[in-house]
């Protein structure tokens, strides 16, 4: 019995330790974001509390001088288009692959599969030239096209769901004279709602957090998304940890709120999306 109690204590200790490791760096940054310039200059320890917990001055600075408003705007535009595109493209691909038998079908499937194995970071040297050739460099279309074009995970998620929709539904609609497009639009797409929710969540988080693609393709400040705009804090605010902290918290906050609101769906989305 005592051995069991000891084991339980160790389990809880390890969990508390992990919680501290996760939350401590974030908490300290939150505290720092509420401190004034002087408080930091005093050489206080990082763990000390701010004098005034309601000091939002740094947030105002970060938001205005860091061009965060346009960054959130650009991110929103990219999110909207790339998610809508991913949903459409993923569901159409899944429908075509699962519901039709046609020549070269195996080849098409293999093309999509093989692309999943190619890590995006490796091919950007050459992708860059293509994007540049289309004149999309430094426009929001570059990330949108790239996010839409290469999302194999969402195609796979849609494929799983299309398979679970009985073919008899398609057939009875076909007897009523519906063509393939009507079937896709009226029957398949509406029944894909749970898959769409999953894809929206997984894709949304990936796009919101991505750094590499906007960093390469959107160099001008007007086209900063939240990650590149935050990255630019490094120069002008390099010594001003209170402003950098406020910027970081501003970027983390939306994620936290959405996570708390949609916890269950997010876990499901990731187990479904990543295990493929």
């Amino acid at each position: 019995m005592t051995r069991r109690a000891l084991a339980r204590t160790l389990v809880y200790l390890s969990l508390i330790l992990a919680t501290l490791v996760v939350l401590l760096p974030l908490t300290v940054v939150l505290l720092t974001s509420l401190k004034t310039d002087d408080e930091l200059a005093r050489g206080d320890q990082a763990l000390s509390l701010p004098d005034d917990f309601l000091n939002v001055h740094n947030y105002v600075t970060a938001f205005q001088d860091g061009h965060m408003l346009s960054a959130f705007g650009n991110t929103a535009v990219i999110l909207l288009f790339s998610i809508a595109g991913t949903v459409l493209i993923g569901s159409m691909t899944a429908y075509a692959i699962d519901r039709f038998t046609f020549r070269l079908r195996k080849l098409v499937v293999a093309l999509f599969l093989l692309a999943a194995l190619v890590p995006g970071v490796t091919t950007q040297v050459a992708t860059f030239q293509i994007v540049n050739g289309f004149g999309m460099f430094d426009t929001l279309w570059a990330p949108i096209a790239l996010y839409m074009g290469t999302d194999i995970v969402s195609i796979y998620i849609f494929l799983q769901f299309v398979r679970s929709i009985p073919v008899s539904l398609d057939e009875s609609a076909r007897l009523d004279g519906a063509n393939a497009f009507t079937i896709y639009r009226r029957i398949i797409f509406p029944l894909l709602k749970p898959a769409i929710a999953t894809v929206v969540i997984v894709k949304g988080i990936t796009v919101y957090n991505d750094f590499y693609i906007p960093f390469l393709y959107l160099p001008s400040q007007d086209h900063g998304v939240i990650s590149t705009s935050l990255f630019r804090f490094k120069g002008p605010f390099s010594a001003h940890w209170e402003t950098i902290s406020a910027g970081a918290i501003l970027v983390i906050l939306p994620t936290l709120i959405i996570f708390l609101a949609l916890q269950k769906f997010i876990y499901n989305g990731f187990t479904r999306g990543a295990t493929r």
Partner: protein
Amino acid sequence: MADLAHQTTRAPGRGGARKGTRPGRPAPVPARPPRRARLLRGLTPWLFLLAPLALLITFTYVPIVNMVGYSFTDWDGVSPELRYTGGENYRELATRPDLFEVFFVSGYYLAASAVQIVAALYFATILSFNVRFRNFFKGVLFFPYLINGVAIGFVFLYFFQDGGTLDSVLALFGVHTDHAWLGTPVSANTSLAGVSVWRYLGLNFVLFLGAIQSIPGELYEASELDGANRWHQFRHIIAPGIKPVLTLTVILSVSGSLAAFEIPYIMTGGATGTETFVIQTVKLAFQFNKTGLASACAVVLLLIVLAVTWIQRRLVPDDRVDLT
């Protein structure tokens, strides 16, 4: 695979097969649809695949082919002329140790992945049994994975600063270091690899948790009747039950370690010996305009990642990954 069934139930596109409709059922489709309709039907799947395939080929396959092409040239990425130099770039890669040295940095990330997988497995196992505040702990462990990489970079730059969080915490325990965490190659790389454990542990944890929870509960009960303890249960029920996810995680960790970019680039920009292969490639291509050499680097990395993936597929043939 499941398509065999479909094929038999709807093959009107292929014509003749339906000539003799089953008795008692009025033929809904004309025995042989007119040519145009047949043509249209054959085209339908391609109409759905038009946009997806165009994007896939433009942004994945054309770049790969081009990249292999560039890797045999001395192109700078801008000028209209490019000279074919044969295997020169690859020779340079193989003979200049500084270009290949960056792979040793991946070793830190590989070691970190091992720590990460073991820790994720431990937490997934204990949290799949009854523990108080389970959802809270689950949320805390997973949340870092959802945070923006740049924000994480800044949080940890501050964390590792002189007199920053880490030093303050150590001071609480009476340990005083006057040691810049990101100042020497070994401690900088260890610190950065630590950050990536912090960041990615949650994903592995959630994947393992999902797999463990899909194991039927009766198995545990039955094993308990047989006198199995937690370790036995882990060894004989959980470990085999999550093998597919485990191998997938290993493969993702290996290719992730080789392609480490965000955290080191954001935090140190590759200074003090923290440059990874991808940082080097990006710098070669976009700062030094050595598109040819950078392409050769990218081809090498791509081949290594594909090789690792291929080995894993060979080792675990029962993988559920199939798109058919």
